[in-house]
């Protein structure tokens, strides 16, 4: 046991012992904050076998340091300055970067102050096993602690602290390596200060502290080739003075200082929001701000002013007479900027050419526009927060200088991000030729006002483009899905019995059985999609003696295994939900729980959380109770299987009767829901057939079949969720986890209403969800049965997305779920794959008095924070799933193209552009773009375009929104980016290849 002593200091030493700073609160108050500082002499240096420090202290750094660097043959440790972590995190994180690192507390704090994401990466770094990292609390060790001098800037103070620590370390190592008699006098290893701050290096030189710049350090390393590429552009300023920086003209306006931005936003003169790039037109973006109902439009590169998708920006809105309408033309970055050269894109002449090109593309649009379509227009004047991360890209092969296509020289190339929302990134690399055709990860470092494109650096390669592994990983990265395997700390939270875990025999003394209802004799079954391994719900129904029906929903009792504030819990909270890709599932919880212990498999006893209703035959709820239980499912059906069983008149066993009973109740429940105004929405859902589980080559795509039993399960899950929501909200009005769907603002439907009115003469009543449901039912085209589904899909896109929230955070009258027409709703039924459900389970368990509620779930702030993460993850998971389907649809199409020579499908027109059509292929759930090479007669008011007929002499053919056309679908490999993309051309009514 270490002896803990507290030094009581006299007040005279306040300057040293107290660290004081001011804080300005959000409400504009200034608060003085004082921190006590106790200096100690027993903070270890972390070097193995150090004879000066306490021998019992934990050590990480090897005694001789790293001896492989050519500048430091006697061994060394590196002590990086803050700027190294701020600018070169990818380098430090690289597997090739192996020297032992000493991280100072001063540096940690500075990094935290400057960038939280980088700070969490740094924290992660200190806990990895592969790297030798020692965190030295220099501000607390009495020899290295420093006091700020009068008139010293905070930055200078920290630099001085870092130098002081480096100096101390070197002196300390000398003491730790005294010359031993009889042995050659070996010099002790050095502690090398690494910094890109020139002034700091100068001062360090003066104080005889070994120091070096990052680039020079990496140059001397044994695997410098791989590492030099990882150097971020920020650090390379001083070594590349070749380009005449001053001579370049600024392409963008400077950002206003942060304080000015905040002041402007506060005063209402500027507006803050997230920047959304337009995926059809790279020269246009929008920023939704609270002050206007329509988002602020940004037209052109200058006005978008270096904003990248997802950044939090501040915009200035122009006078109303300068407002514009969004374009209706597709402007493709690759097409417009095809000839832009990465090396020379700074040159004047080229500049003008590109500029002309772009402004022509823009001007054509904005001249003649109906004033009604105009929306607030403005420009970006500053960035509050960059949301840059690593992006999946391809190297643009044309940007390689042809002469050195095989050399390993440093060259500047363009990387085109997979996402259409991002600009091209310029990066310098030595490995360019070997990267062509690969998917690579690129990080943006900076975007200067003189540079048309952001500059970035190469992080790592994911593999060959279009290989499944690379595509899968790139998908996960692109949607920020955490996909690392679960760590040891998390797996340690699982029951030690592992796969052998069973429900212990019934006995009052056993904790598992405390307050649990024994439902093992009930005829319970589960109905799930084919191939489902994580069965989290099961059902039963039986007639009671009083004529009523008892129906029960049994949900896997995940909260029995996942306890609050464990490693597993926090990991699940961070993952938010399980992500389903076509050929892979990224679990939220370790597989042992998901597919075994919590999976309600048939014929085994499992712990469950049951909701049991007593209903009348007309599905009126008489009573509901919630209980923890033990069940033994009697069967696990697939939807189709259950359907067959229900419809088979020869079967009359208890299980079948139970299903029939459930089904009759479900139909009545559904009818009631529809009567209350629930929407029947549609989204394109397709299923990918895989050849076999090994090859996972998609064979075909088909639309998902819907059985009656799908709706059976759905109805009971909805009912369970609603009942649980009422219960938890009653018990915890401030913090219960609920889910809501806000009614969409009527303006969202304006365009769809207009199209329907003009094209089909149909009216869409959006005054309430019930009215919308009714009018959607009336949107019928007798000739075209699929038309209704199409309208439903389009209507769905006009709506807001549902979200989780904490009941105390919003007002009571906004709790409602618009789509389900339910006043209150939550998610309770899938705790294996959704984290929100785990929280609801905990709250319900507390509401029925099974366990006390964990204090964190009493905190509104805490719940709100989790909800934010879960909402984001939920959205990302959906998008990743969809993108995965899209990729496989692409692969399937490629296969079909090879077999059938030409693939044609029926499609609906959903959008018209001046130079193209947006079409939707319902059979494949695929949306695509048909582009025309030349302009057509475009009637924006009536959503029609006229194209010349393919037969000469015939009148022009008019195509309008909702028209059914036939398209030819090809998968072509983009020459520049190696990106496989679906290309659609019109077959009928006109063959567009001629256009």
């Amino acid at each position, binding site marked *: 046991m270490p002896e803990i002593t507290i030094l009581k200091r006299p007040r005279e*030493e306040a300057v040293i012992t107290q660290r004081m700073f001011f804080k300005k609160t959000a409400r504009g108050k200034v608060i003085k904050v004082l921190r006590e500082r106790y200096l100690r002499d027993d903070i270890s240096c972390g070097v193995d076998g150090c004879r000066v420090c306490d021998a019992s202290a934990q050590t990480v750094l090897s005694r001789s340091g790293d001896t492989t660097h050519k500048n430091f043959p006697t061994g060394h440790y590196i002590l990086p300055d803050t700027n190294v972590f701020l600018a070169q995190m990818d380098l430090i994180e690289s597997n090739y970067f192996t020297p032992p690192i000493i991280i100072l507390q001063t540096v940690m704090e500075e990094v935290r102050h400057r960038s939280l994401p980088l700070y969490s990466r740094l924290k992660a770094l200190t806990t990895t096993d592969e790297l030798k990292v020692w965190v030295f609390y220099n501000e607390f060790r009495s020899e290295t602690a420093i006091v700020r001098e009068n008139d010293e800037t905070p930055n200078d103070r920290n630099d001085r602290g870092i130098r002081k620590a480096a100096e101390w370390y070197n002196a300390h190592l000398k003491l730790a390596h005294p010359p031993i008699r009889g042995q050659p006098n070996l010099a002790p290893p050095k502690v090398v200060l690494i910094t890109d701050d020139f002034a700091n290096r100068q001062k360090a030189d003066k104080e005889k502290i070994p120091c070096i710049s990052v680039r020079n350090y990496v140059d001397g390393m044994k695997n410098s080739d791989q590492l030099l590429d990882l150097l971020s552009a920020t650090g390379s300023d001083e070594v590349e003075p070749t380009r005449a920086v001053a001579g370049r003209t600024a392409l963008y306006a400077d950002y206003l200082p942060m*304080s000015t931005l905040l002041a402007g936003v506060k005063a209402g003169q500027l507006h803050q929001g997230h920047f959304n790039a337009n995926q059809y037109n790279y020269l246009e973006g929008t920023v939704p701000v609270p002050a206007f109902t329509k988002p602020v439009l940004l037209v052109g590169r200058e006005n978008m002013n270096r904003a990248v998708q997802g950044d939090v920006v501040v915009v200035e809105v122009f006078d109303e007479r300068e407002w514009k309408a969004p374009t209706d033309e597709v402007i493709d970055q690759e097409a417009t900027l095809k000839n832009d050269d990465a090396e020379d894109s700074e040159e004047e002449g080229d500049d003008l050419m590109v500029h002309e090109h772009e402004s022509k593309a823009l001007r054509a649009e904005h001249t003649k526009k109906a004033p009604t379509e105009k929306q607030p227009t403005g420009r970006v004047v500053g960035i509050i927060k960059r949301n840059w991360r690593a992006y999946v890209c391809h190297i643009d092969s044309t940007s390689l200088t042809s002469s050195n296509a095989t050399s390993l020289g440093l060259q500047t190339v363009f990387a085109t991000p997979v996402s259409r929302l991002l600009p091209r990134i310029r990066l310098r690399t030595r490995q360019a030729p070997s990267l062509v055709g690969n998917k690579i990860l690129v990080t943006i470092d900076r975007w200067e006002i003189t540079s048309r494109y952001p500059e970035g650096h190469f992080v790592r390669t994911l593999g060959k483009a279009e290989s499944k592994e690379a595509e899968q990983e790139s998908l996960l990265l692109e949607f920020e899905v955490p996909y690392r395997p679960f760590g040891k700390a998390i797996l340690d939270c699982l029951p030690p019995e592992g796969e052998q875990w069973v429900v212990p025999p019934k006995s009052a003394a056993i904790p598992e059985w405390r307050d649990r209802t024994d439902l093992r004799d009930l005829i319970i079954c589960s109905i799930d999609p084919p191939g489902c391994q994580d069965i989290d719900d099961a059902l039963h129904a039986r007639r009671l003696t009083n004529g009523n029906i008892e129906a029960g929903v049994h949900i896997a009792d995940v909260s029995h295994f996942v306890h609050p504030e464990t490693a597993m819990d926090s990991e699940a909270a961070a993952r938010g939900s399980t992500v389903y890709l076509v050929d892979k599932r990224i679990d939220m919880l370790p597989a042992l729980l998901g597919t075994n212990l919590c999976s309600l498999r048939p014929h085994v006893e499992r712990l469950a959380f049951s909701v049991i209703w007593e209903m009348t035959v007309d599905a009126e709820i008489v009573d509901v109770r919630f209980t923890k239980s033990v069940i033994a499912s009697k069967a696990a059906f697939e939807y189709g299987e259950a359907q067959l069983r229900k419809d088979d008149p020869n079967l009359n066993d208890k299980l079948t009767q139970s299903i029939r009973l459930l089904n009759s109740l479900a139909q009545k429940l559904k009818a009631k829901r529809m009567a209350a105004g629930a929407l029947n929405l549609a989204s394109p859902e397709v299923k990918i057939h895989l050849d076999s589980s090994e090859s996972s080559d998609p064979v075909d795509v088909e639309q998902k079949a819907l059985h009656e039993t799908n709706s059976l399960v759905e109805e009971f899950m909805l009912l369970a969720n609603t009942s649980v929501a009422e219960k938890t909200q009653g018990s915890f009005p401030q913090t219960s986890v609920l889910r809501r769907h806000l009614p969409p603002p009527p303006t969202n439907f304006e365009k769809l209403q207009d199209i329907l009115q003009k094209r089909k003469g149909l009216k869409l009543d959006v005054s309430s969800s019930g009215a919308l449901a009714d009018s959607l039912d009336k949107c019928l085209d007798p000739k075209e049965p699929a038309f209704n589904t199409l309208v439903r899909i389009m209507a769905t896109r006009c709506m807001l997305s549902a979200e989780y929230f904490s009941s105390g955070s919003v007002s009571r009258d906004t709790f409602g779920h618009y789509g389900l027409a339910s006043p209150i709703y939550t998610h309770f039924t899938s705790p294996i794959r959704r984290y929100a459900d785990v929280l609801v389970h905990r709250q319900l368990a507390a509401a029925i008095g099974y366990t006390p509620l964990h204090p964190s779930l009493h905190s509104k702030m805490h719940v709100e924070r989790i909800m934010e993460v879960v909402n984001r993850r939920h959205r990302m998971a959906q998008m990743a799933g969809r993108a995965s389907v899209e990729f496989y649809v692409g692969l399937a199409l490629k296969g079909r193209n090879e077999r059938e020579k030409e693939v044609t499908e029926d499609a609906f027109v959903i959008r018209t552009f001046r130079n193209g059509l947006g079409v939707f292929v319902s059979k494949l759930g695929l949306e695509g773009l048909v582009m025309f090479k030349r302009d057509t007669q475009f009637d924006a008011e009536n959503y029609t375009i006229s194209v010349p007929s393919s037969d000469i002499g015939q009148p022009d053919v008019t195509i309008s929104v909702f028209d059914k056309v036939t398209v030819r679908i090809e998968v072509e490999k983009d020459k520049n980016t190696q990106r496989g993309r679906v290309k659609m051309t019109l077959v009928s009514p006109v063959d567009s290849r001629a256009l």
Partner: protein
Amino acid sequence: MASISKAEKAYVQSSLLSNPPLRADGRGLIDFRTIALESGIAPIANGSARVSIGTNAQDGGGGTEVVAAAKLEVESVGDGEGVDGGRVVCSVSCSPTAYPLLSPNALDDLQHDMTSVLNATLSHPTIRPKNLCILPGRKSWLLNLDVIVFSDAGNIFDAIFMAARAALWDTKVPRTKSVQYRAKKSDRSDATQAMDMDVDETAHVGSALDTRQTIEVADFELPDYWDEGEPLNGRQAWPVCLTLNLLPALHFLDATLQEEASVPLKLLVFYSFLSDATPLLRGMRLLGTGVSDLVQVNSLLKDGEKYARNVWLALEGKLKDEDLRRNQKARERFLNR
């Protein structure tokens, strides 16, 4: 405050009037007891000081003890109580242990009396520090000066004012920087497309004629979070108080409680001595049941000025010492550990 009997009163008065005058502790008429001062005693405040008069050197007991602390607060001008240019609000509160014989009501009255004397002198607009203003017309500092009387062994007003002056001397105002946003018309014309030239031109004419374009200062920021800030502007001007205890035909300084109870009249004078100007009388008060006339007061003011200057000089020297002790010397000690 101490209530003493008539006999005691007569005894004290006659000893003071005897020749040579006699005081219980052997001091001369214009001698002070020992004064101790320490500044920066409340780290969370923006400035603070403790003053004790006549504290027993052996056990630290007895004597008058007063603590003053200044705290700055941001106020908005216009919609709240704030005054453009900032304001100073003083208050004095007495610990009940300082006056164990007083009822709570009487204590309240006493606090109120003391507060009104201090507030009337220190919150006067003529000595308001210039740097209490953050954003003209929008934000300013409110300086709350709170004085607590821990014990009273006589001469409380001198102690209160000394502590107040030391605390204000010690007060540092965090440095602020105003931030503003102004739409720049000329700047925007570069960014807009060339196609709306005509629109642009009208905009230019408009801005040239527009004289109303005022600088819109919206908010402020703290440029350096670690810096305590700068001292109050004109901190030399904070006055000292000197109490002249008047017994007909003579006056004496730094009265003990018994002496205070024995005199019919006290004259408080508030002086500040700026190095380059004539002494400035910031105010005066007559307290007590006795009467005086203009001729007497006039001569008393002259004497008062003389004594006050001595107090001022002593205080000035000590405050500078304190600054040194708390900064430079503390650092040196830290370096030479």
